[in-house]
């Protein structure tokens, strides 16, 4: 069983995603990075599902894929809105409110 490899790959993907979210200024890229993280999760779930020999892992993964799609939709909408108002999608420029 190649569980550990799957997990390592998942972890790697997740780390990359986290880095992307925290480091990229472009809103769209941030969304993409989040997708990466979610896919890392899916990978884990499927792998564990195989290991435990249960279907719920795959089911969980399916749910995540579906929900992720919805999430990204909303996310892109918000980014568009921002772009319309501020002509920019650099997430770190939005700090009207703080403190």
């Amino acid at each position, binding site marked *: 069983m190649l569980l550990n490899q799957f997990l390592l790959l998942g972890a790697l993907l997740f780390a990359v995603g986290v880095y992307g979210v925290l480091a990229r200024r472009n809103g769209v890229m941030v969304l993409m990075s989040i997708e990466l993280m979610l896919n890392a999760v899916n990978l884990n779930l499927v792998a564990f599902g195989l290991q435990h020999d249960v279907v719920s892992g795959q089911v969980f993964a399916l749910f995540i894929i579906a929900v992720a799609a919805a999430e990204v939709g909303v996310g892109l909408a*918000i980014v568009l809105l921002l772009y319309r108002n501020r002509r920019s999608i650099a997430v770190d420029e939005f700090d009207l409110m703080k403190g």
Partner: protein
Amino acid sequence: MNLGALVAFVRPELDWHALAPELTLLAVGTLVTVADIALDDKAKRMMPTLAGIGLLITLVPILTLAADGAERSMFGGAYVVDDFSLVLKALFILAGYVVVLMSVDYVREGDYYENEYYTLLLTSLLGMVMMASSRDLVSVFVALELLSIPAYMLAAWRKGGPRSNEAGLKYYLMGVFASAVMLYGMSLVFGVAGDTDFGTISEALRGEGASPIVIVAILFVLVGFAFKVSAVPFHTWAPDTYEGAPTPVTAFLSVASKAAGFVALLGLVFVAFEGAADVVQPFFWVLAVVTMTVGNLIALRQTNIVRMLAYSGVAQGGFMLVPFAVAFEGDAWTVPGAGITTTVLPSAYEAVIVYLIIYAFMNLGAFSVVLAVARRTRSGEIDSYAGLFRYAPGMAVLMTVFLASLAGIPPAGGWFAKFVIFRTLADASTPAGWVLAAIVAVNAVIAFGYYARVLVQMWFEPVPETVALGVDASGDAEDELADEPAEASANDDGGFVATETRQQTMVAFTPGPIPMTGALAAALAITVVATMALGVFPGLVSHFGEVASFYLGG
């Protein structure tokens, strides 16, 4: 491996009565959307009414289920309807109803997509209602996203307003990021337990002990919800979002969605993670202390009332986290039916629920007053409350009641919420518990510090000539000036005190009675009556707490 066994699909048994509340909500939501498409503009004024009535109707099946009393379980225990879930569903619905009442005029007077607003509100509520019944990682996740995604959009609902947009953006990014982290944790949990339903996880963890993977798994999951309940240091989105979002939405987020987070935590911690007590309890101990202390201290420095309430909400969340820190310090007792012995502390469980209920009403009340007062002052600054007692004594008294309640001063309801927290700690009577009790006591005092600032303005100060044009409460007014580059440059001076760099336009102020509307009056009435009633006869709420805690049996 035998995929055949895996794919063999059995159609699950559906208990329509049990699903009635969710279905009703769904129906109402759809109805609102359809009506919006079908009807002409005049009829659209009916939408809030429609939504409100729909919510009230939703209470009916909840009541019938409660009367019926049988515990119903579906989808292999992933979705359960019992007293616990019913109590909280009722709470969500009521909170939602009050929010609708708060929204009616606010949404109508601002330029919003009115109907979609209610659709989203109802959808989000649907997610919460589902959350109350979820007993499985999958259903918890689905419910969470179902309640979050509409909330992201609501936060950004004032599409013209940069602040609103920014609020939405921050909420969204942080939200999805947090849920991604949470999901990663969930996947590990699944890996350890081999299944996604709480029961299995619980047993697996009992055996597992605190191996590194378990620790990481649990912590990541908890972080996801710590974000939801805006616990320090995962709270950072809350003040900005609360300030930027439309006030009713803020109220909604600060009460309903926070409550949903706690509901999920209750399920996870008290049932699924019991085996990992030595990870969970210290984590929550620290989390609770940091949350209430930091929340209180920062709140002391706020000059914008919504922002102040946001931080106060953070601190209150800290109080609600306290029972988790002693969740498993009870004497060993056997769960009726299940036959497993556990050291879960029932009073801790009740404490959270009791606090949730009371907090919902008093906080919604406070926000209602903010809404109402803003209709006169067009400002969200605390200073703008000066002399309120002179020209609108009734409103001042209401605000006093809610703030006193938040500060935990009898006879307003809040005192009982604080009391049950203390009671829990005393019940656990561990050294850590006593220390925590002392910290809670100190924080209760600090908290009054900033509530008092509002009281001082309302009661002690004369009526001002001018008020600062507010951040949010006054609608879009200030967003235009927020666009000016002056604002942006003001932010680059590195000063971290937003309230000092924020450019404020002072406008003349004429005192006078608060322009009330029926809906707002209703919202105030409901909240104040509930707050006082819960204070004078806490028996009501504590009864629900007891009822709900039977859930521990399942």
